[in-house]
């Protein structure tokens, strides 16, 4: 957006009323005008029905008037419905607009702001607090106009019927008008406190969830509960006060408007008895007066929504009213192509509390030079790197990239020329590929190029995967993928064909690491269910989770004499697992070797308890099914808490033959049996190539499998296809399905893929094993030397020898700056740090 806009936090609530909604609001006004007219008609009809039709005993007239009455009611209702729809649309659009604009604003706020702000606060503001302001915008035109017009129309009609009666019955409204704002002040005071407390509460929740490890670690449940409960109690009090005031407004209003009929009856009744008012007019007057309540009530409600909305809106906007430190995009020019040189002079960075994190730092790099920053933690090396990368706004001195001052550049200028791999890289939920392309996409976005311009090709991606050493990981993800029917048919055919070559070329070498599917052998790396069916189910009723409830299968187990031994296996498994895991938190690390999932543990605890004093046959049928389910899952190589008895193994092998015989005759399509000519859709690609299961091999075994499989895939020209599947691997929330090393490699890879002119590495390889670390180091030294400027915050001193310059930092200053050998020869700070 090029034109200067008021930032959302400075916009008034009223500015949302017509923004983008002009035609809707105008339509609304037109409908309302018609609607108000349609509302008075029934009143007049009512009078005429009594005074003319009934009095004159004229049936025709009665029918005509009733017809008009009915028509206007229907018409009114239709219009009312239309206005509700339009109001809802306006309200929702306003809420959505506020949410978007505020989120867009919040993302641009300086890092500093988020150090003080919990995620929960942001979530609460965006999700909860903007609803009422949105509702206000929806009502803002329709509600006052409709209700005031209606009030005027009815009021006018009342005066037309009887001015005296009208004046008396309307006299109560000024009293209400006087009282309501007084009460509303109390509402607003409470609401302001409610918004603030809700915000504190949200950040409290967010904090304890983020720190859940520490809470578990210290068993600090009570401490956290107390902190939380105090806040909830405070919110409780505020909400009660808030609600009481709100109801106070309503009650005052109801009370006074309730007095209306009283006045009409006493005065109107008197006038009618005295013959100065027709009965029809009194009836009309009464119902017209009653009709005043609704618009009046709505008007009061609108007033409340307006007040609440205003409080929520301004409170929220005030909180986020912080200016971004840098422009996001240049307004009247293209983004700069910056030079690769760096000139830092007299740079200082002082925190709000007056601590000098950087103090008079000077250094300069020519394009393509590599600089290593070393020093103890807290020496300011990361801060310096982040100041150069514009993530921190330095408070004094200057940083020139090319010949441009960094503080004057827009974010776009920076990201087009500079890449940062941070200490704790963040991996977003999504596929590996999405995360790899994250930096490139952000750079290309808004550069005015076409969609795929400047995006890397698959070859580029594969090259970077190799460079950063994450290639094998991605290959693994690909190999572990389970394909679905109809997906990648060509690949499926290839894999089935490849099997023979694999067994011929690598079968012997990998025999120790693979358990091949063999009809006559028990599979220790497969579940009991798999061992029995020895095939992949094609029907959902035979899927592993449904098998224990499948009547056909249960009957088969009986025939094969398996029910009882399996039940006892299940009972044994359940008892042991509950005994070991009973009190552990539901973390993956505890449950990946367990047949019972974390969320099932409580159920099985109950069953295990019953088993203490009940025999298996005394259990409820449901519980027996649960135990059977457990037994069917049992995989000896994973679930080590019980052993598979020999007799059961034999029994299951016999059962396998029997099952195959039976089901082939009775339901031949139910399973695809494991055979060399068929792809097994329930198994991963790797297991399909092997035609077996990999066994739990140590790192060396893994390495051997990888080598063989890569050789095979290259030979068969399948490598790219598998890598592509691996790239679609979902990394999970915050990348939690990746190891720390994989996350870091991915973070390095995404910056390498962007290949910026200036690269900042902030301890970017600290979580990597030696080999990957050396690999990345070599790449930087050979491929990037003299081409890209590199600033590396080093966490290990053995990696910095080949840098052009080394800066040793302490307490925010550079102690020494020069080539490694030169500094070592000087026997100064670096020499001391290296400790030789």
């Amino acid at each position: 957006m090029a034109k200067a806009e008021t930032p959302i936090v400075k916009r008034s609530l009223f500015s949302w009323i017509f923004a983008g909604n002009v035609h809707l609001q105008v339509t609304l006004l037109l409908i309302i005008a018609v609607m108000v007219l349609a509302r008075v008609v029934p009143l007049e009809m009512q009078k005429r029905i009594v005074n003319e039709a009934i009095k004159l005993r004229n049936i025709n007239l009665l029918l005509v008037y009733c017809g008009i009455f009915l028509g206007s009611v229907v018409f009114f209702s239709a219009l009312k419905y239309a206005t509700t729809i339009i109001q809802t649309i306006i309200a929702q659009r306003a809420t959505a607009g506020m949410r978007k604009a505020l989120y867009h604003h919040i993302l641009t706020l300086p890092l500093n702001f988020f150090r003080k702000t919990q995620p929960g606060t942001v979530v609460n503001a965006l999700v909860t607090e903007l609803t009422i302001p949105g509702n206000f915008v929806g009502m803002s035109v329709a509600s006052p106009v409709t209700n005031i017009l209606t009030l005027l129309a009815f009021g006018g009609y009342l005066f037309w019927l009887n001015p005296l009666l009208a004046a008396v019955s309307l006299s109560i409204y000024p009293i209400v008008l006087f009282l309501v704002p007084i009460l509303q002040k109390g509402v607003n005071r409470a609401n302001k406190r409610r918004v603030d407390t809700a915000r504190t509460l949200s950040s409290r929740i967010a904090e304890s969830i983020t720190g859940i490890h520490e809470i578990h670690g210290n068993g600090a449940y009570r401490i956290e509960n107390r902190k939380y409960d105090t806040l909830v109690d405070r919110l409780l009090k505020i909400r009660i006060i808030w609600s009481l005031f709100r109801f106070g407004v309503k009650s005052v209003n109801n009370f006074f408007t309730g007095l209306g009929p009283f006045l009409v009856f006493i005065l109107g009744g008197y006038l009618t008895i005295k013959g100065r008012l027709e009965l029809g007019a009194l009836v009309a007057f009464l119902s017209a007066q009653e009709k005043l309540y609704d618009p009046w009530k709505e008007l009061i409600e609108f007033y409340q929504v307006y007040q609440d909305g205003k409080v929520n809106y301004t409170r929220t906007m005030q909180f986020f009213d912080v200016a971004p430190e840098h422009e996001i995009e240049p307004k009247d020019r293209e983004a700069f192509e910056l030079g690769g040189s760096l000139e830092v002079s007299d740079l200082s960075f002082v925190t709000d509390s007056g601590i000098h994190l950087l103090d008079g730092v000077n250094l300069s790099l020519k394009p393509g030079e590599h600089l290593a920053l070393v020093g103890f933690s807290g020496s300011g090396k990361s801060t310096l790197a982040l100041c150069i990368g514009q993530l921190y706004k330095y408070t004094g001195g200057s940083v020139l990239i090319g010949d441009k001052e960094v503080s004057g550049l827009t974010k776009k200028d920076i990201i087009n020329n500079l890449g940062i791999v941070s200490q704790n890289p963040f991996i977003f939920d999504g596929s590996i590929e999405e995360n790899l392309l994250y930096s490139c996409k952000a750079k290309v976005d808004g550069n005015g190029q076409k969609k795929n311009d400047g995006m890397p090709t698959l070859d580029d991606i594969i090259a970077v995967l190799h460079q950063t050493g994450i290639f094998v990981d991605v290959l693994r993800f690909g190999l572990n993928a389970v394909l679905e029917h109809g997906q990648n048919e060509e690949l499926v055919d290839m894999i089935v064909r490849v099997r023979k070559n694999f067994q011929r070329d690598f079968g012997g070498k990998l025999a120790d690491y693979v358990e091949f599917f063999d009809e006559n052998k028990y599979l220790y790396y497969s579940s009991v269910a798999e061992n029995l069916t020895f095939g992949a189910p094609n029907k959902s009723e035979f899927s592993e989770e449904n098998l224990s409830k499948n009547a056909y299968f249960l009957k088969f187990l009986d025939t094969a004499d398996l029910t009882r031994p399996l039940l006892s296996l299940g009972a044994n498994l359940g008892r042991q697992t509950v005994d070991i895991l009973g009190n552990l938190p539901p973390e993956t690390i505890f449950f990946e070797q367990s047949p019972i999932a974390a969320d099932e543990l409580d159920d099985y605890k109950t069953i295990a308890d019953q088993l203490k004093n009940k025999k298996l046959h005394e259990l409820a049928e449901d519980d027996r099914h649960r135990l059977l389910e457990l037994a069917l899952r049992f995989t000896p190589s994973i679930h080590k808490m019980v052993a598979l008895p020999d007799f059961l193994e034999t029994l299951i092998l016999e059962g396998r033959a029997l099952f195959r015989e039976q089901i082939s005759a009775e339901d031949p399509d139910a399973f695809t049996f494991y055979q060399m000519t068929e792809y097994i859709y329930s198994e991963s690609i790797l297991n399909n190539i092997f035609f077996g299961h990999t066994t739990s091999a140590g790192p060396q075994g893994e390495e051997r499998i990888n080598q063989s499989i890569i050789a095979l895939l290259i030979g068969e020209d399948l490598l790219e296809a598998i890598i592509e599947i691996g790239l679609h691997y979902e990394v999970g929330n915050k990348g939690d399905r990746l190891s720390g090393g994989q996350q870091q490699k991915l973070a390095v890879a995404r910056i390498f893929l962007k290949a910026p002119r200036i690269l900042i590495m902030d301890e970017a390889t600290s979580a990597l094993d030696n080999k990957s670390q050396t690999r990345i180091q070599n790449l930087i030294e050979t491929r990037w030397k003299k081409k890209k400027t590199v600033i590396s915050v080093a966490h290990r001193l053995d990696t910095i020898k080949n840098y052009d310059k080394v800066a040793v930092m302490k307490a925010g200053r550079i102690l020494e700056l020069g080539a490694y050998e030169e500094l070592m020869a000087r026997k100064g700070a670096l020499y001391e740090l290296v400790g030789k």
Partner: protein
Amino acid sequence: MSLSENSNSSSTTKSEFEDNLNVLRQTYFFSGLPLETLKIFAYLCTREKFKDGEYIFQQNEDDGQAFYVLQGKARLERRDNGETAELRECKSGDFIGSLALLGDRPRLFSLKALTDTTCLVLNREKFTKTMEQFPALFPKLIKAVVQRIDTWEERFLMHRPDQCGECMVNLGVSLL
């Protein structure tokens, strides 16, 4: 070695878990822990096989694992300036690497399998996550380690000092 032999070597129905439990009770590091905690460790341990000549762990790597040799033989080595010094041998029943569970430092030595070797392995992540559940047990472990280091040096002082010569000045790791 085929898998069936491995998983079900004995025809009695003793599970791997029970075997592991017995092994852990014999190690200096774990033996002082209550049964409840030991069971979790016995459950979390895995068995890994290393072929003759493979490295169980390597110098300069931080693998973060502790090993109990169940079967086979392995040798500790130290590489310096391209030369490999062969230190001592580890055989079945030896427990190595408890310190790697407690802190994250690169290995100073390598351990190389001399025959096909099977080890019981526990890694730092599993160890740490479990100990988070039993923070009160940490002092017990620390005591065991301190005692171990002390006994080690004491034994060294009793039997070896005469062969050590110049390195005498660097003794005293138990004084840390």
